[in-house]
């Protein structure tokens, strides 16, 4: 166990910095970092299925959107009831998980593999986007919650305990909540990777048939991993909806669907921590470029992506992390 933590010195140092950050920076930047961290979970989910199991999904955004909309619809309908913001999060995650299982069942028990999974999941998220875009009319309402089409939903409560005056919308509470959530999830994912299911899942990437002939249930393992990934995407969806008080069909579209894939691949899909850090880095980078780069922002972003795959096939963040731990002995 101890040796395990020794290996993770780099991670521990980065998290210590992140934990101390609120002392040094003001509320705007803190909120902004919280926002960047909202996007890490959807990418971590992709790192589970893609990095570990070699399953490329473009459909993480479907779960992101479903959870965001689920949270909004439930919480708006039961506005004013005690603890609504908390249990609507739980409920929408359950729904997302069930949907993830259904999709996963369809994929893995239906014998769909490789790039076909990418296309099927892409089609699923595009179906959801196309449908949601045209739900502007009053006939598209679930209870008292209007779906409001392309313009998006608003009016959901902030996650928190109203009676205790504890809200998650912004500030230090939101920051620490998301950061601690990220730490817990990262530790759980490392544990998952070393668990029996995790090892079987890792092996399925290399050779499904051999794993199966050894008596392991390949489909079930893949289904479990896929459901975990969909839940992680759901967490991102809810946090994002909460952060902006807003969710649109846009978040399930083609561009949104490609972004997690790009971030994960460019960061280093085999290492969860690199994905976590890389996701923060790339969201920050694209925002910073948009502020300073004017119309060249998108070109620079594209160049960085192209160069990083050309020269660092395993991901630029993972490469940097490995270099750093190699160079500095005590890491």
């Amino acid at each position: 166990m101890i040796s395990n933590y020794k290996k993770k010195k780099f991670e521990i140092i980065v998290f210590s910095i992140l934990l101390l950050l609120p002392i040094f920076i003001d509320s705007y930047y803190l909120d902004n970092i919280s926002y960047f961290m909202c996007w890490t979970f959807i990418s971590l989910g992709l790192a589970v299925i893609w990095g570990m199991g070699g399953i490329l999904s473009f459909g993480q955004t479907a779960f992101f959107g479903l959870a965001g909309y689920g949270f909004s619809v439930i919480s708006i309908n039961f506005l004013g009831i005690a603890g609504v913001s908390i249990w609507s999060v739980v409920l929408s995650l359950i729904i997302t998980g069930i949907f993830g299982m259904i999709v996963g069942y369809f994929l893995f028990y239906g014998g769909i593999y490789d790039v076909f999974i990418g296309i099927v999941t892409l089609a699923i998220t595009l179906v959801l986007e196309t449908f949601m875009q045209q739900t502007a009319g009053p006939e598209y309402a679930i209870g008292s919650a209007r779906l409001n089409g392309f313009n998006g939903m608003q009016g959901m409560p902030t996650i928190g305990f109203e009676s205790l005056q504890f809200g998650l919308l912004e500030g230090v509470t939101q920051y620490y909540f998301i950061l601690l959530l990220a730490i817990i999830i990262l530790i759980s994912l490392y544990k998952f990777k070393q668990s029996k299911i995790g090892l079987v899942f890792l092996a399925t990437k290399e050779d499904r048939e051999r794993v199966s002939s050894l008596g392991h249930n390949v489909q079930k393992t893949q289904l479990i991993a896929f459901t975990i990934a969909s839940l992680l995407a759901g967490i991102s969806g809810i946090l994002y909806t909460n952060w902006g008080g807003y969710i649109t069909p846009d978040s399930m579209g083609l561009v949104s669907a490609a972004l997690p894939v790009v971030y994960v691949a460019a960061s280093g899909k085999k290492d969860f921590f690199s994905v976590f850090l890389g996701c923060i880095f790339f969201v920050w980078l694209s925002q910073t470029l948009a502020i300073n780069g004017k119309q060249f922002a998108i070109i620079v972003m594209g160049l960085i992506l192209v160069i990083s795959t050309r020269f660092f096939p395993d991901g630029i963040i993972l490469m940097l992390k490995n270099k750093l731990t190699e160079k500095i002995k005590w890491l």
Partner: protein
Amino acid sequence: MVFLFNIFYQFGDSLAFLLLAAIGLAVIFGMMKIINLAHGEFITVGAYGTVVSGKVFNLPLPIAMVFGVIITVIFGLILEKLIIRYLYGRPLDSVVATWGISLIVSQSFLVIFGPSYEGLQTPMGNFKLGEFSYSEYRVFLIIFALLILVLLYYLFMKTSFGTLARATIENPNISSSMGVNVQNVYTVTFAIGAGLAGVTGALYAPTMTIVPSIGQAFIVSSFITVVTAGASPFVGLVPAAAFLGMVQTSVTFFYKSTIGLIAILCAVILIIRYLPQGFSGLILKTRSK
């Protein structure tokens, strides 16, 4: 009679769009297994190549179209040399690189040519049947799409280059040990794929708004058509496009285009589930029986 022609025209139009959207990708993704998210931008290059060369040099449309295609081929060759050749055998990494390329290209077009470029008028005229009138160019597109597919089938399935290309991509090591210059085969094949996307851009340029995002109108259609076509794209493309086109036109006819769009996506999901080898798998299976 008019009714039948209407069905042919609507269905054919949808078929032509799906086929032409897919042809370039059928080579690059279908054969070479590169998940080319920049496929739309290849089409954009073809469209801008046509329109800009037509305007600047005052060329007649067909020649401008040839220019557009040549420019796309050159563009494809450069990309292959700089980036793509390092991605062979790493299909999943190609997602990031081609996404990056797509960002660079579409934004560069915006910077260079502005948010929009003056469009061309659709060539040829229109003809009437009863109360309906039709664009002749659209009928031409249908015929041309089918023609180009026959050519491609011939090129990749019947000529020695085609056999070489397919064999090399199937197993580069064996081909290499047999003295084939694997790199050259890849380069030429990629350039053909890029050129075909350029053809699509050139053909649709006079019928669409010329904006830097013009190619993105094709991207979803192209991927779903190639995937439903299956492992042997040139065998499966026509039935795949025909099936998807039929689903889309009929659903749009009875409901509305939003449902048509959803229906086509659902059809793809079901085809992949129940016909994992796509339409080409189905055809090859029945043929071998």
